[in-house]
């Protein structure tokens, strides 16, 4: 709704165009997968900030196998590479009891170094490659469009009618150039919800994150579940990397991940450690991520949108009684609004920092009403009776 107002006010038609929406959902995938990976890990009680490193390993794996053997090989290799990263992380934290943040940071360093080294070694002499980039990945993953849905909606969107067109834009974007990987991701999200909340396996895994000592006293092998969770976490991060390499760009490139592993963690927190919420968060962040690629008018639109959003949030917060916070938001919203009104051209850096700024703002607002797993981040040793 706010988006519609913004669009009309700024004439930035790209804000809700099919193209943008499609790209938004697209970029939501790696962020969402990272968030899902974080979810698996933290539900078992292990705080995983090494997701970025595991994602990097994934992009590299995709590039490595992808350029020689095609997309499916790249996909599988990416998952394996990410999972190995997760396993290593599990070894450090579960078996050796290293502090989880420290271990995660070490994985990030190692992932970066290893991929940089191997990239230089293997890709420099490969055709089309370079020291920090792999040769183009061979082939493409199937992407489907559903013309029956997206064509009429796209023309509806182009008519620029208030609200109707925007909704049309969103829906048609969803079905336009829908990559197979996106579909896989949606399936993974649903699978996660089912496994973790409707099976015995999932209950036990979650118990490892809520009260591992209780689980141990009931004969559950807590460490085994933690290992599974972090490996799964790494594999999902690797898959996210695969998306970036295969679908989004078509190559492995150093620096591709650009902090999306951390943004994924933020979406997990935003989603209250649940798959549904994480998916929503990923879509929001994905949308903001895309606007980097659009032009100035849209960036202006983004700023206005941000301003309007924050102002309305301020209204909600005020109603719920937290006066000071509401005031802070009011000021922030006004500042953004003034910024919008004062310039007609926004530097691209604004879009560049938008995802990260949004993450901060989201975390700052959401922090209070959250319910993380009780034993998340707490080191657990077998036999350590609390």
């Amino acid at each position, binding site marked *: 709704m706010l988006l519609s107002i913004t669009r009309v006010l700024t004439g930035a038609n790209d804000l809700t165009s099919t193209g943008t929406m499609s790209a938004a959902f697209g970029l939501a995938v790696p962020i969402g997968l990272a968030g899902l990976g974080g979810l698996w890990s933290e539900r078992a009680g292990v705080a995983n900030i090494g997701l970025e490193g595991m994602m990097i390993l994934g992009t590299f794996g995709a590039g490595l196998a992808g350029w020689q053997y095609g997309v499916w090989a790249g996909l599988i290799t990416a998952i394996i590479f990410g999972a190995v990263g997760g396993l290593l992380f599990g070894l450090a934290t579960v078996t050796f009891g290293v502090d989880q943040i420290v271990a995660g940071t070490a994985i990030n*360093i190692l992932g*970066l170094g290893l991929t940089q080294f191997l990239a230089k070694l293997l890709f420099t002499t490969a055709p089309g490659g370079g020291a920090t980039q792999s040769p183009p990945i061979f082939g493409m993953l199937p992407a489907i469009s559903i013309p029956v849905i997206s064509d009429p909606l796209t023309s509806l969107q182009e008519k620029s009618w208030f609200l109707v067109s925007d909704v049309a834009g969103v829906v048609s974007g969803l079905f336009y150039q829908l990559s197979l990987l996106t579909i896989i991701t949606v399936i993974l999200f649903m699978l996660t919800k089912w496994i973790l909340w409707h099976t015995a396996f999932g209950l036990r895994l979650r118990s490892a994150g809520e009260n591992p000592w209780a689980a141990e006293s009931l004969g559950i092998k807590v460490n085994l579940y933690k290992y599974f969770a972090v490996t799964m976490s790494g594999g999902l991060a690797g898959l996210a990397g695969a998306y970036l390499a295969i679908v989004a760009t078509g190559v492995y490139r150093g620096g591709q991940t650009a*902090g999306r592993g*951390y943004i994924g963690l933020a979406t997990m927190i935003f989603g209250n450690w649940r798959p549904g919420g994480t998916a929503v968060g990923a879509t929001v962040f994905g949308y903001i991520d895309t606007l980097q690629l659009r032009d100035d008018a849209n960036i202006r639109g983004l700023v206005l949108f941000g301003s309007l959003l924050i102002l309305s949030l301020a209204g909600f917060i005020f109603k719920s009684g937290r006066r000071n916070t509401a005031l802070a938001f009011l000021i922030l919203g006004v500042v953004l609004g003034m910024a919008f009104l004062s310039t007609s051209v926004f530097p691209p850096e604004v879009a*560049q920092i938008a995802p990260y700024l949004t993450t901060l703002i989201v975390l*700052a607002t959401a922090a*209070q009403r959250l319910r993380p797993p009780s034993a998340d981040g707490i080191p657990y040793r077998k036999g350590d009776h609390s």
Partner: protein
Amino acid sequence: MSVKRIGDTLLAPILALIIALIVTSAILLAFGADIAEVFGAMWSYGTRPNSIVLILNLATAYYLSAVAVAIGFKMNLFNIGVNGQYLLGAMVAAAVAGQLSLPGIISLPITILVAMLVGAGWAGIAAWLKVSRGVSEVISTIMLNFIALGIISYTIIRTGIGKDIAVNVRGTKLIPESGWMPGFKIPGAANEVYGFTLVAVAIGVGYWFLLNRTTFGFDLRASGMSPSAASASGVNSRRMTVYTMLISGAIAGLVALPDLLGDSHTYTLNFPSGFGFTGIAIALIGRNNPIGIAFGALLWGFLDTTSAQLDLIGVPQEIVTILQGVTVLAVVIAYEIARRNKIREQQQEVGRALTEKSNIL
């Protein structure tokens, strides 16, 4: 600190380094390189006086970064935002220094102060988010890193603060010679060691002193060891968090100054931007101990300086990065094992001592 304590501190990182060397050698062998040639090339290059100067200069920046991180670690805070803090600090300090044409006695302290204030302020944002909104400083500092990059890029490229220094290079206004920091020579070398190295040493001493000889430092360490015990003893945990992050950020702000004041004299977008993560690695290796960190910084400096040689003999220099990554992982694991052993040992020692006493009685 007794010799035994220093020995204990260095034991695990040395062990970890050996493990890392083994792993790296294995990788080198797998790719058909000659280990002796590789390490030999690195050693011979690294021990030349010119190289030693380069190593010292690099190590200075690394040391500052690691100390900044270590202060946070001591309070169980993870300041991953050193990158953003030092780049912002350097840019602002360079811009300010470029405008000053005062004698060095005045302009240098001002430059340093500006850098510290900017770094502290940037870290302060994360600190405020943590104590008022409960946002994990791990994520907030990382986000701030990226935001800082955006701000810097904007400032240099699109505002008047960035000027055309050379072909295709934009940077802050050149700092006049009066604002430079003199270096000093060591025998045999053609280049100079940064004067800032002495400042770094002073900071290292200050770090040790603050942590171990002041009540503030005691409060800080206690908060890191047991927040509940610290509260009961009178520590205001929110204030402590903010102070610690501010100090950490202030020191982080200095990381680029050795280079800025001793060599480049302008801030450009080409400034090395990964020192924050290096600082984390070195703080982990040195176990937050000022001497351990020095060891780590020198080691890292050595590896990074000599790695350039590897390209000449056909080995990608990034092998060193792997060595570093494995070392970090090995060190943290080794330390955890050592810590558990120590607790067990101490309990046994106490048990023994007590049974002895009762036997005597």
